[in-house]
């Protein structure tokens, strides 16, 4: 007997579906734990790299709220996109399209998690961080999911802003105000998102096309998408180095940003220049996607390491 599909016979020998109570793991899956790990990491890096001090308990609460907010927004995303997810191989086994969870339960869970995250952030840390968290949730759940994603191939570009909030919120949780440095961290993730996501969209484009999502490779074609990936990778070099250039970090971050961004750029060149043929495995695109994940982890790790070395007087 599967977890999703149960039937029960009544006295007239008709069959009707028996909806089992959802498992707690299905609620956990609604929060997109893999995406959340990147959110937690970038938020934590913003918090650790910020000048100033925050009590560890309040710092923990801030990161927990960022994670809860991301989880709530992800649940609302899955609630809204349940029909779309059912048409894509990558997402068809999620709790809603597979029938393991009621749609309204996902909506209520998302709203509750989102509201709780903002409320706890405001009470435990401060209301500027809570306001930014609220904006990031609305940005992802409404601006990206409901408004942009089904309407424009630029969905990822503008929607990338939603994923760029965590380091900004983490930073502001410590300092209490918005300055150039956290805005640059925001910009790094904002400009990193298109090449990261379009590299993925290039090798899963048949799924997006089937689901009717206007992803760049589907609407504008592969050639345009590949050129734009290269353009964003070029832009990312000065943007990633900007925190060092304005004197916000030491040379450890600056050198890491330049090396990593140039490597990202080099890997994007074959993706930009080649044309895929059937059965070629899409290796350059998959390599670029894999490196893009490593890039963000390495860059933000370098930011924290640089800050620790600077604070302890090891580097100037």
């Amino acid at each position, binding site marked *: *007997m599967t977890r999703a599909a*149960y039937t*029960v016979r009544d006295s007239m020998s008709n069959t009707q579906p*028996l909806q*089992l*109570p*959802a*498992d*707690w793991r299905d609620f956990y899956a609604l929060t997109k734990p893999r995406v959340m790990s990147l959110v937690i990491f970038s938020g934590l890096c913003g918090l650790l790299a910020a000048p100033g001090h925050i*009590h560890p*308990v*309040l710092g923990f*609460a801030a990161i*927990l709220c960022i994670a809860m907010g991301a989880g709530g927004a992800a649940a609302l995303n899955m609630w809204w996109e349940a029909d779309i997810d059912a048409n894509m191989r990558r997402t068809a086994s999620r709790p809603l399209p597979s029938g393991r969870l009621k749609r309204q339960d996902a909506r209520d869970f998302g709203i509750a998690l989102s509201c709780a995250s903002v409320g706890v952030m405001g*009470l*435990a840390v401060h209301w500027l961080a809570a306001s930014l968290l609220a904006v990031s949730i609305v940005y992802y759940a409404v601006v990206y999911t409901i408004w942009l994603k089904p309407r424009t191939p630029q969905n990822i570009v503008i929607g990338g802003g939603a994923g760029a909030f965590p380091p900004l919120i983490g930073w502001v949780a410590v300092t209490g105000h918005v300055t150039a440095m956290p805005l640059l961290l925001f910009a790094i993730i904002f400009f990193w998102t298109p090449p990261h996501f379009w590299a993925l969209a290039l090798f899963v484009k048949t799924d997006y096309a089937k689901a009717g999502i206007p992803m760049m490779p589907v609407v504008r074609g592969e050639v345009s998408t590949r050129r734009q990936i290269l353009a964003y990778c070029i832009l990312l070099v000065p943007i990633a180095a900007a925190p060092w250039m304005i004197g916000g970090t030491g040379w450890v971050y600056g050198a890491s940003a330049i090396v990593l961004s140039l490597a990202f750029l080099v890997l994007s060149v074959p993706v930009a220049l080649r044309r895929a043929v059937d059965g070629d495995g899409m290796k350059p695109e998959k390599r670029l996607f894999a490196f893009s994940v490593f890039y963000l982890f390495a860059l933000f790790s370098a930011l924290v390491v640089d800050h620790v070395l600077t604070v302890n007087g090891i580097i100037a």
Partner: protein
Amino acid sequence: MTPEDEAEIRRRQKARNLALALVLLFFVVLFYVITLVKTHG
């Protein structure tokens, strides 16, 4: 509804209740500690 179905429903309800209880307990402790930090820190 077969006895197996009923047992599965009870098992899931119990697991969800336990998970919810743990989450609530976690937040009780967290709020307590946050209050201590905010009042003494």
